[in-house]
């Protein structure tokens, strides 16, 4: 046995016993963007036993400024983020078992993944997915750690089922439309600050030191030099639909429909088929080549440029239409080229 975890074991609150615990734990990270990259690297270096990481997107040049697992080659090859992440993470620590899932987390899949893990780290970029994570975590009693950032601002909160308020308690009855896309950009330090909070809390949970958890809603602005920590336990609602007595897990109940989503700040629309399919990308490449436009393919996805639009189709049938924020225009292109 080498001594790669010696510094962490010398840290008394973890110690040898804590390290042993960490090495048996399975963590699920939803999202492999900025927060997911940094969080995954920290946990893999810390020596968790198993990591499942899920993301729907591929690496682009605009990611490289802050998404620390990715390289120029990954952007050039349009590698799905989780594939590029797995390559890098395996090189960092080959003893961690890493599962990479290219998908847009659906309710059904989230329930399945949640059952098998000890902890969920939120690294998504949207509240729709977060509310599903929140419901699945309550359903199976799994802790999860909310984290988000925009500009130089970040926010995080650790949600422990049966103890703390859940995300639905905190957000109240506000329609999710009120939480629209943030287009203010983002700086790397804000990402890393959120991740530092998330992973510190994660380590406490993984070693079983729940007394040391922070129990506060944290927010900060690194540019405006502000910091705030609020005790929110009073916001726990007895009649919460996600964690209350007569809970219904409302966010897990929409399924089996074609779903469209405008992707934040990206001039892109994602379209997900109603039922999972497996696309033959090679055959599709041949068909599209006859349509004019430029086709590029790697083992995971196919990119088709036509006019001012670019359509990227994944093996699971999902399509990202670039060059529009208009859902009906995106759907028209989707049906024209992919049936």
């Amino acid at each position, binding site marked *: 046995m080498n001594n790669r975890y010696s510094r962490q074991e010398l840290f008394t609150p973890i110690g040898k016993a804590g390290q042993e615990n960490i090495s048996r734990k399975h963590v699920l990270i939803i999202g492999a963007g900025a927060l997911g990259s940094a969080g995954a690297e920290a946990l893999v270096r810390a020596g968790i036993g198993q990591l499942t990481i899920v993301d729907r997107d591929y690496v682009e040049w605009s990611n490289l400024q802050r998404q620390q697992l990715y390289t120029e080659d990954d952007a050039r090859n349009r590698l799905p983020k989780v594939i590029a992440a797995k390559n890098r993470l395996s090189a960092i620590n080959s003893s961690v078992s890493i599962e990479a899932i290219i998908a847009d987390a659906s309710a059904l899949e989230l329930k399945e993944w949640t059952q098998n893990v000890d902890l969920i780290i939120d690294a998504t970029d949207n509240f729709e997915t977060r509310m599903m994570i929140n419901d699945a975590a309550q359903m199976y009693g799994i802790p999860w750690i909310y984290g988000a950032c925009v500009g130089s601002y970040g926010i995080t909160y650790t949600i422990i089922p049966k103890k703390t308020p859940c995300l639905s308690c905190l957000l*109240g009855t506000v329609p999710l439309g009120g939480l629209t896309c943030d287009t203010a950009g983002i700086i790397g330090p804000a990402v890393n600050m959120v991740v530092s909070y998330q992973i510190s809390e994660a380590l406490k949970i993984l070693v079983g030191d729940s007394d040391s958890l922070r129990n506060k809603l944290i927010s900060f602005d690194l540019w405006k030099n502000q910091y705030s920590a609020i005790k929110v336990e009073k916001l726990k609602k007895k009649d919460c639909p996600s964690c209350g007595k007569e809970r219904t897990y409302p966010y897990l109940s929409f399924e089996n429909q074609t779903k469209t989503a405008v992707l934040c700040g990206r001039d892109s629309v994602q379209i997900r088929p109603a039922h999972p399919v497996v696309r033959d990308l090679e055959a599709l490449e041949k068909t599209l080549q006859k349509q004019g436009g430029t086709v590029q393919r790697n083992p995971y996805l196919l990119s088709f440029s036509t006019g001012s639009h670019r359509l990227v189709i994944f093996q699971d049938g999902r399509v990202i239409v670039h060059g529009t924020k208009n859902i009906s225009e995106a759907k028209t292109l989707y049906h024209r080229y992919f049936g």
Partner: protein
Amino acid sequence: MNVIVNGESVQLQDGIENVKDLLEHYDIQDKVVVVEVNGNILTSAQHQSTRLSDKDRIEIVHFVGGG
């Protein structure tokens, strides 16, 4: 009046009398926020009825979605 918002001393202009006014002043009335005044956490229904006084300590956290 003079209040402390997220640790910083702020001089509020006349007309900002309650928490709702303050959120409008910062242009975050449309965001989802958690507000604490002098250690007491408020529900959103209490924003308008919670009057501010000199030297109040106010914490405002707004939720964002990016990642």
